């Protein structure tokens, strides 16, 4: 066990994957000498060389498009998009090519590509640096979407994502990059539990709180701080496929659900969760599913972000409302 930040755990996960499989290559803007603006690739170019850690031009469509070509050539590219808000120039390559080419080729072309995307707000950044675009990717068939909530998970799921033969959008909750946790770097990733499922991160009996990525810590803190109710917290983790089995089992027990994410509410992931649980737990639900999300607004200036983002109080407010129903 080593205590490390999530950024360090991701770095270690990348390193392990590169050591194990020489076909793993990294590409992105400023990932080499600089080590990425968050230093997640720090030291990797030095140790693996410029042929495996490739600094690219400033062109996101080119980066993802090139990754597709590299994969066709038998490599396993791991792409870094510098910030969430800069993934949109690559949207066509992701949605019309990366997501669809395996199907287009009747399964003959595999695209084991990971797109690393630092996402979410809460870091006081200027515009375009705090976006939560996950719903776009979850709605896009052919992609897998995953987000680790802590350093330990990050270390393992990064390696699992790279090992997957499907394209994976790997969302890194950037406000949690500096959170530390104990990471078991000796873990046998091949035997680790599947990453494509959600997990109960706190058991409880009165209400279920579903969340993922940056909101997991927030919800855990809210659960801890609730004075009377026993909150079960489910980290969805795998956003596509969205594993609602664990969640549904939880709601069948608690009868109440609050879903939390930073992204705008309308047509966000919370809607999908509410729709699925609403259908599966029709008789068990004792209150409507409540959503706590970012508002349907462009990400506001940093000094207002605390009002936009779900925080402990808003989660508790929803928990109380769902309990009072």
């Amino acid at each position: 066990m080593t205590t490390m930040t999530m950024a360090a755990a991701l770095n270690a996960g990348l390193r392990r994957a590169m050591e194990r499989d020489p076909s793993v290559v990294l590409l992105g803007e400023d990932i080499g000498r600089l080590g990425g603006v968050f230093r997640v690739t720090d030291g990797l170019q030095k140790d693996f060389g410029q042929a495996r850690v490739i600094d690219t031009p400033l062109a996101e469509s080119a980066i993802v498009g090139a990754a597709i070509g590299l994969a066709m050539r038998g490599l396993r590219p791991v792409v870094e998009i510098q910030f969430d808000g800069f993934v949109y120039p690559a949207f066509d390559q992701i949605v019309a090519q990366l997501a669809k080419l395996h199907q287009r080729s009747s399964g003959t072309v595999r695209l084991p590509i990971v797109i690393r995307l630092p996402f979410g707000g809460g870091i006081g950044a200027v515009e375009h640096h705090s976006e939560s675009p996950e719903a776009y990717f979850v709605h896009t068939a052919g992609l897998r979407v995953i987000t680790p909530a802590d350093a330990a998970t990050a270390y393992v799921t990064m390696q699992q994502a790279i090992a997957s033969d499907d394209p994976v959008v790997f969302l890194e909750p950037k406000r949690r990059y500096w959170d530390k946790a104990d990471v078991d770097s000796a873990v046998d990733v091949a035997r680790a539990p599947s990453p494509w499922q959600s997990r109960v991160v706190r058991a409880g009996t009165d209400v279920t709180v579903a969340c993922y990525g940056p909101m997991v810590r927030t919800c855990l803190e809210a659960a801890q701080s609730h004075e009377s109710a026993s909150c079960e917290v489910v980290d969805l983790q795998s956003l596509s496929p969205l594993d609602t089995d664990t969640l549904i089992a939880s709601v069948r027990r608690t009868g109440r659900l609050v879903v939390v994410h930073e992204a705008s509410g309308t047509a966000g992931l919370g809607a999908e969760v509410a729709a699925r649980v609403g259908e599966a737990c029709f008789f068990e639900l004792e209150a409507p599913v409540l959503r706590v999300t970012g508002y349907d607004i462009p990400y506001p200036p940093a000094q207002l972000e605390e009002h936009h983002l779900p925080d402990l109080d808003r989660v508790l407010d929803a928990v109380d409302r769902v309990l009072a129903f």
Partner: protein
Amino acid sequence: MSDSEPAVRLLSPDGERLADGRYDIDVSDAALRDLYRDMVLVRRLDVEGTALQRQGELALWAPCLGQEAAQIGSARCLRPTDMAFPTYRDHGVAWARGVTPLQLLGLYRGVTNGGWDPTQLHCALYSIVIGSQALHAAGYALGASLQGSSDATVAYFGDGATDEGDVNEAFVLAAGFRLPLVLFCQNNQWAISTPREGWHGAPIHRRAEGFGFPGVLVDGNDVLAVMAVTQAALDRARSGDGPTLIEAFTYRMGAHTTSDDPSRYRSADEVDAWSRRDPIRRLSAYATRIGAADESFFAEVEAEADELAQVVRAGVRQLPVPPPESMFDHVYAEPHATIAEQRAFLTAYQDSFADEGVA
């Protein structure tokens, strides 16, 4: 074609052999006959494609009529392990890479979104989103160069595609990584209804210099010239000297697709004028002139084309419609819970009709 070197040309429209100070190529009589056969067969396939669409057997067809020299000439220069990235119109390229006519028709009949195994044939699937394949080609070439291989890659795209960001970003990658890549642009003068002439400030091949690699203009209806410049570009790629942009000046003799009505935007005169520069006639005139082929050979190829047409007509009607459940087959390479669930739903749903005897 203002402001540019004259196009590389090795055959006059009447099939005379010309000298070009910059490029030349030696093609044996047998190879000439093969090129002719390729071009005639591809044209027949193409004509059948249009006819089959009219008959309702295809959902759509994008004719390559008039572009056979550009496609065959370039693709025939590739080695088996080189890689081609064609567009929806590059039937000659697909043909040269060994894609069978029926594989090729599947996409246009609507029984597949692809049709062949790109890895096996070293020919990517047709790209429909304009310009997107140029980046895949760049990535593929980057992979080849990282692996120290001598495989070259060719990206095909049209004149219109040079407007797209993706194609320009491919130029950036090509220059920056000195990729073993040939960027092969068929300037067929039209992007649906958008004419090339008059609109753009500079000829396409000059675009390359601005990115830092050479561009060359070639008469795209001259199969020998196309081969000469493509071969040179491939050699350059293999020897580590980086990319080349080739502008093959040609003409889209047919409609954009069978859904298009070109009479709305271009004159019959223009089409007429270009028909006098037909690439196949040019090659046959040359082959005849030098005694590489005679009437009996041409008749033989004609018969082969008739046979091909028949095979295509019969075969296309029998292209299997995949079962509905196949929609779920290759969405993911690995098991996926939602897909499994939806597949089960579809099966149960269909069975419910079977129960009712509705089939």
